[in-house]
């Protein structure tokens, strides 16, 4: 199946892809802890970007509330671990199941009445906001004061509980990013993927070709939500602290969508490229603004906002199609 994916991909593209894979695999052997942590952010952004891209890039639905799934899964897996000693490898299942169930509820509400476009985006924000305010009041997971996973030295090395060093988290994030990329590549060529594209382009025309609009949309929503949930579990055990005001916040939802938008919505490589551009840019901005004494998080977000506006105004298809033609690659993106 993997070999089939590379049918029609130019040799040049194959070489570059293999090169990228080798570099990413070897990275922790040569880089220091800090740079590895930046690469973890890159991989995670590429992964969540891929998940969100399924919804907008493939199925044409704009979600501005994907932080909902990140937060739900993070809280559920962390809660199971802290209160019941259930490790994340097991906890990920109920966490993802809840994300999918909530997404199903949202989809059911939205798709019955053909709520799309702006209305759909607003509904996603509203769901995330309800979760944010709700978790502020759930004492079981710490409420507004935050929920903390114990970081004990005796737990270190328990990879089965995701209590391990940065290298471990790095390879896990890399695995997620690579897996999501391959999954999307398979989906792009599958029947389901073609259904999504048809519905994205013109729902009525798709329907006239025998495609069930709501089923297509729902499948994209559930998959996207479930995938984002897995990132939430990772996030919980990587960061070890959760605050409703951060993980469910609209700014988090926007962080999740920056990479695919900047890289190229609807392309397979866009989320990856976007992640490679954004995470290091963010780190550079933070260190520069920190050095000259400005409000670092504010400046970073401000520059990202300007960047977003510039990309959508100047390069609406994203950077990847440009880079692809610059590198003379044709069929990796689409």
């Amino acid at each position, binding site marked *: 199946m993997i070999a089939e994916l590379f049918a029609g991909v130019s040799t040049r593209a194959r070489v570059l892809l293999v090169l990228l894979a080798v570099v990413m695999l070897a990275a922790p052997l040569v880089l220091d802890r800090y740079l590895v942590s930046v690469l973890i952010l890159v991989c995670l952004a590429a992964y969540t970007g891929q998940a969100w891209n399924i919804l907008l890039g493939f199925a044409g639905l704009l979600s501005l509330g994907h932080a909902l799934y990140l937060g739900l899964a993070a809280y559920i897996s962390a809660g199971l671990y802290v209160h019941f000693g259930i490790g994340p490898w097991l906890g990920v299942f109920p966490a993802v199941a809840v994300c999918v169930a909530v997404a199903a509820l949202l989809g059911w509400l939205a798709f019955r009445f053909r709520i799309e476009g702006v209305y759909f985006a607003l509904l996603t924000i509203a769901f995330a906001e309800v979760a944010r305010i709700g978790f502020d009041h759930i004492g079981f997971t710490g409420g507004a004061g935050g929920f903390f996973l114990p970081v004990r030295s005796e737990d270190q090395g328990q990879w089965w509980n995701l209590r391990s060093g940065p290298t471990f988290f790095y390879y896990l994030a890399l695995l997620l990013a690579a897996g999501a990329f391959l999954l999307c590549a398979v989906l792009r060529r599958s*029947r389901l993927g*073609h259904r999504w594209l048809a519905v994205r382009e*013109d729902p*009525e*025309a798709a*329907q*006239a070709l025998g495609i069930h609009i709501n089923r297509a949309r729902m499948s994209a929503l559930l998959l996207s939500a479930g995938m984002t949930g897995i990132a939430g579990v990772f996030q919980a055990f990587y960061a070890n602290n959760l605050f409703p005001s951060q993980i469910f916040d609209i700014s988090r939802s926007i962080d999740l969508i920056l990479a695919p938008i900047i890289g190229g919505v609807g392309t397979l490589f866009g989320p990856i490229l976007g992640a490679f551009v954004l995470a290091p840019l963010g780190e550079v901005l933070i260190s520069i603004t920190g050095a000259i004494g400005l409000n670092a998080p504010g400046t970073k977000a401000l520059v990202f906002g300007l960047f977003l506006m510039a990309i959508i105004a100047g390069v609406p298809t994203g950077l990847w199609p440009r880079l692809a033609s610059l590198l003379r690659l044709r069929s990796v993106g689409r």
Partner: protein
Amino acid sequence: MTLLAVNRVTKRFRGLVAVDNVSLQVDAGAMFAVIGPNGAGKTTLFNLIAGVFPPDTGTISFEGERIDRAAPEHICQLGIARTFQIVRPFAELTVMENAAIGAMLRAPDMDSSYAQAGEILRRLDLWDKRDRKAHGLTLPDRKRLEVARALATRPKLLLLDEVMAGLRPTETDRMVEILRGINREESITILMIEHVMRAVMALATRVHVLHHGATIAEGTPTEVTRDARVIESYLGAEAFA
């Protein structure tokens, strides 16, 4: 054998009667044309058959099975494919992908969908443009793509909504030839709305005339063009216009 039976169907929009007690039977293998002046209710009739909305009264059956409450995707699955009067290609996808999305309804996998799509594009003279994005096509090519995509679903009945409009006479003749081929070789029944009388006279085995939503005549092309009411309400009006 009757493939499609429309029985005393009426549809109103906000009090306005768009389709008024219309009945028609399309036999398997026919080339059935529905004509009438603008606003006669032809496209509404098509939308009723294709399941876009249900009729207020009356029934529609396909192969003896009631379809007047079925959803559009279900109707397509049963074997009725339609084109849109205002073409609706999947603009950001290639011509090939457009046709393959139609073909995947019945193809076992995507590879055979693409193979079937390729055959249909050849038939519609679109093969050379298969890798272009649909939004870059000229209007005649988009009309062809609209037919190709519908045909790719391997329908028993093909509903064509003014596919000749905007074509030059030579292009019309080519489309007539293509449609005739589809009808004869693939034995696909065709129900078409058409304004271009040149095409209707060349193709149709039977013609149904609508005026203000109601039937005023039905018969062979020659019978219909001799009908006094048809001449008065439609052909005459067009001639004076």
